[in-house]
């Protein structure tokens, strides 16, 4: 397996990225803040508006380092991709499968299955750890979710739309129970339902932020195995949307995203004061809190888990890469089905 390298996060909006030899230099008003050799990096995420020099972009693409620009609040803006490379036969196969509804349903249902099973594990883990806090509603939702998983496994969904609808209902059950998982008694951290663009409460702000980070990792993982992150199976193809990255990230949402957010809130890594509320109700992370979250995120990515299918221990940060690799193998016909990542 590949080594997990580091990700450089640039959160100061005044900073400018440039290249010097084989290193990336972060500077603010012509003053050098940091200098990192490119071979230590996996990706660069820039939260600023000053940007980067074309030379630095070239350095990143030559070394397969993902470079993406997001707004200071974590909204994805742009990703720099190099020359079209990789295996064109693999990509053609991907496009063909994407046009074929039956084949797409097959892959998409694996992704959804992975996601829902991981959702179930998140709930299950909670009910095991805090058996006295489990309400009747929680148990009902858990049961519905489990039943839905059995149905998807049995292959009841014949079309993508059916699958999307079914997934929507089951996710709703999951998010209905999500508030129970938040142990913080502060009223600011109560969760009602998922809101986005903009997130309307603190938990939603954290969820959206962590999903952005996962999506960026998934997109670069797909790129590095030679797949086109824009051509998806479950998510519709739409200009500018990394549909396949969104497909791939489904299975990571509960395990990497939701559990990460829960641990931030429940362990009081972030507090109610770490957010600003805008006039339109949008809730956003403050600059300092964003740094704290990113620090926790980087730490989390270094933790090791056992990959059930590959039977190998690997850092969490490499999971998107290993799943992208498995997806490529499936499209190439080396394996019979796409095995989503399921937490034990």
């Amino acid at each position: 397996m590949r080594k997990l390298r580091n990700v450089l996060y640039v959160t100061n909006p005044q900073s400018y990225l440039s290249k010097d030899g084989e290193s990336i230099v972060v500077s603010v008003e012509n003053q050098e803040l940091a200098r990192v050799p490119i071979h230590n990096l996996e990706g660069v995420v820039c939260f600023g508006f000053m940007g980067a020099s074309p030379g630095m972009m070239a350095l990143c693409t030559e070394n397969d380092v993902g470079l993406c620009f997001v707004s200071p609040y974590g909204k994805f803006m742009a990703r720099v991709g190099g020359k079209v490379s990789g295996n064109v036969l693999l990509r053609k196969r991907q496009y063909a499968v994407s046009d074929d509804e039956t084949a797409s349903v097959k892959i998409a249902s694996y992704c959804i299955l992975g996601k829902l099973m991981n959702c179930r594990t998140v709930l299950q883990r909670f009910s095991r750890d805090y058996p006295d806090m489990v309400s009747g509603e929680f148990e009902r939702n858990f049961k519905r979710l489990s039943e839905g998983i059995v149905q998807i496994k049995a292959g009841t969904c014949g079309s993508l739309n059916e699958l999307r609808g079914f997934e929507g209902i089951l996710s709703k059950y999951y998010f209905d129970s999500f508030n129970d998982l938040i142990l913080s008694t502060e009223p600011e951290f109560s969760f009602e339902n998922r809101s986005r663009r903009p997130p309307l409460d603190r938990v939603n702000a954290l969820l959206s932020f962590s999903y952005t980070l996962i999506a960026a990792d998934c997109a670069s993982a797909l790129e590095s195995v030679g797949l086109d992150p824009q051509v998806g199976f479950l998510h519709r193809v739409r200009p500018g949307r990394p549909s396949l990255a969104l497909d791939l990230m489904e299975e990571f949402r509960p395990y990497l995203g939701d559990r990460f957010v829960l641990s931030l809130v429940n362990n009081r890594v972030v507090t109610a004061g770490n957010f600003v509320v805008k006039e339109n109700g949008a809730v956003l992370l403050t600059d300092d809190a964003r740094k704290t979250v990113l620090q926790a995120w980087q730490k989390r990515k270094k933790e090791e888990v056992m990959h059930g299918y590959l039977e190998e221990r690997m850092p969490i940060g490499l999971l998107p890469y290993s799943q992208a690799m498995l997806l490529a193998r499936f499209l190439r016909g080396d394996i019979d089905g796409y095995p989503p990542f399921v937490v034990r």
Partner: protein
Amino acid sequence: MFVLVTYDVNTETPEGRRRLRQVAKICKNFGVRVQNSVFECVVDSVQLMEMKYKIGEVINTETDSVRYYNLGKQGREHVEHVGAKPGLNVDDALIF
């Protein structure tokens, strides 16, 4: 692995000063400068060979010296820093 690279290049001649700049430039591509002629590099064995080769091409073995201390995977744990200019740890969260 974590490799500490230190060098001493004779700068009495203009030619020597040129070599010094070139060695520094190569080191900058592989690691983080922690003192004037001391670099901490997190590299794999191929990158280390590449760096040794490139530096070997530049220096004059009669007058200059370069030392590579290979501290292994956990090398950073053996480093204690006192005073100004703490070096950047490329394995830590990089947030600027």
